[in-house]
């Protein structure tokens, strides 16, 4: 699934993001290929999460298009949009579990809506998905009864409930300890290999960016546009932008200019 032959999965063209008259980012163009682990990176408050919300259909763009394969998300019919939404999964920053339901019910709700499985089979599937993220035995717990890290993992189990083609992550490592964050990275890599999924990840965790990312877009909040993208390791090697260099080296490039 690598190389030029990989079909494009999400195509973003001339996208402008904003709130009211305020333009957050303009002229964004990038392609997420199938099988990518695509990183959206940039400084705090530059519009990473907003870009993610536009791509996954929670917020309309000011101008521009987001295409999933042949379908233009913001200009398609309701049925097409439903079909698209069925093929994506989202892990929100805090997990965003439905607090009035147990973990198993959280995972089961999308299953009961989109599949014809009976109740027993759905429960079995839900338990399986929870076990996949290391939460076996917590099926009957409510979100308020478990820790923040566990909520995040349960959110991942729910995002994987319908075996989506594309999974979106909003700051997956925020609030996780270094070991858990690393385990999450390992899980993402494993899922991509075994289930042929595409991931779009918003993060500024450098360790994660280099460990899992193979494609990226870099948002710059001073120019209000994208500075570059591609494989993060190559981006660091080839970029002319001092800002990106600084960002990807934790500011070290700025201090030792010329030594790199």
């Amino acid at each position, binding site marked *: 699934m690598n190389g030029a032959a990989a079909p494009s999965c999400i195509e973003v063209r001339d996208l402008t993001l904003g709130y009211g008259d305020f333009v957050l980012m303009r002229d964004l163009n990038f392609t997420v290929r199938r099988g990518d682990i695509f990183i959206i990176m940039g400084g705090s408050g530059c519009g990473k999460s907003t870009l993610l*919300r536009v791509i996954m259909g*929670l917020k309309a763009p000011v101008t521009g298009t987001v295409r999933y394969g042949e379908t233009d998300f913001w200009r398609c019919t309701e049925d097409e949009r439903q079909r698209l*939404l069925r093929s*994506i999964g989202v892990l929100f920053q805090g997990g965003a579990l439905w607090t009035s339901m147990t973990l198993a019910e959280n995972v089961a709700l999308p299953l009961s*809506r*989109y599949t014809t499985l009976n109740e027993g089979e759905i429960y079995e599937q839900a338990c399986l998905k929870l076990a996949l993220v290391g939460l076996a035995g917590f099926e009957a717990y409510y979100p308020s009864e478990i820790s923040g890290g566990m909520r995040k993992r349960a959110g991942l189990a729910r995002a994987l409930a319908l075996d989506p083609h594309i999974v979106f992550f909003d700051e997956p490592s925020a609030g996780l300890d270094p070991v858990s964050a690393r385990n999450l990275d390992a899980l993402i890599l494993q899922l991509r290999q075994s289930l042929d999924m595409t991931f779009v990840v918003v993060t500024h965790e450098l360790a994660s960016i280099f460990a899992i990312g193979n494609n990226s877009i870099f948002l710059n909040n001073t120019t209000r546009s994208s500075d570059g993208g591609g494989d993060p390791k190559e981006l660091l090697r080839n970029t002319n932008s001092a800002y990106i260099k600084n960002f990807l080296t934790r500011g070290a490039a700025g201090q030792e200019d010329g030594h790199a």
Partner: protein
Amino acid sequence: MGAGIPADLGGLPSAFTDGRISRIVYEAGDLKHWDTSLLAFVVRLERAAKAHALSISRDALPEGLQRLVDMAFAVPPGSGTKERRSEDGLYVRLGGLVLDIPPRFAELLRFQGALVLSFWRLLRGKSDMRLEDLLRAALECGLHALPIIMLTSTLFGMILAFMGAVQLTRFGAQIYVAGLVGIGMLRVMGPVLVGVVMAGRTGAAYAAIIGTMQVDEEVDALITFGISPMDYLVLPRVLALSLMVPLLTLYADLMGVAGGFLVGVFMLDLPAHAYYQATINAVELRQLLVGLVYATSYGVIVSLCGCYQGMRCGRSAEAVGKAATSAVVSSIVCIILATAIITIFCNLVQI
């Protein structure tokens, strides 16, 4: 400088201007402990000195303090930050409020339209609403509200009876208290009472629950699974409250009349069967039905206001509080408006 640090510069700046001082030197030999209030004083003093072109030497100050003073002067105030929004004048604010009305109204209409579509999906059997959510909402806003409705409506019936008795006993017409309480409760007071209690109890809760779900991105999670929040969160609550408020009103009517009965029999010494008979004679089914029309409209109003404020809630804890408050205020205003409209209509068609 004495024992402490002067809160402001006292008479110093005026001394700067008359030209007798040309140079300021600190003496800090005895200084042992200091905090940032000293820093603030030094910065203010130096700013005043600079404005009057006086030279100042801070060699005697502790080294740490000197570094902090340098840092304070390194960035001119306000640079690099957004300019603070200036206070608008009265006319600008008034104009802003007026200009805000059309988009707000459009937003409300969109919400109502979405709710109608959601109801249409339910009728066609294509809704995401779950029956258990409807039942749970009905249980919460109906059965669990019985104690507070009992308390408030019984007391309200008693108050009505007392108020009526004060005037009616002057003519020896205490027995008409029964009719007053009966008609008053059934026709309008019972429904209004239930409506107001539900606005505070359930409407605010709807706004807070849905608002918190917005803050925690739970509503977004529903949307990304293709589940309509209108079907899943709003519709069961609106249906539950619209069905439960009329039922609660029947209960409140009964309790109110019972309250009036207690006052009539024990305070006004009316015979129980006479009070009963007078109530039966005065009250007609028509009044009960008119009351149920009021009640149903209040149920729709309170649930709509609560869910609408919850759905448009911002993404902060403060916004949730605001949403709950707005839900209650707008519910009560709309209840009074609806009461006026229905009452005028009933008068016109002579019911």
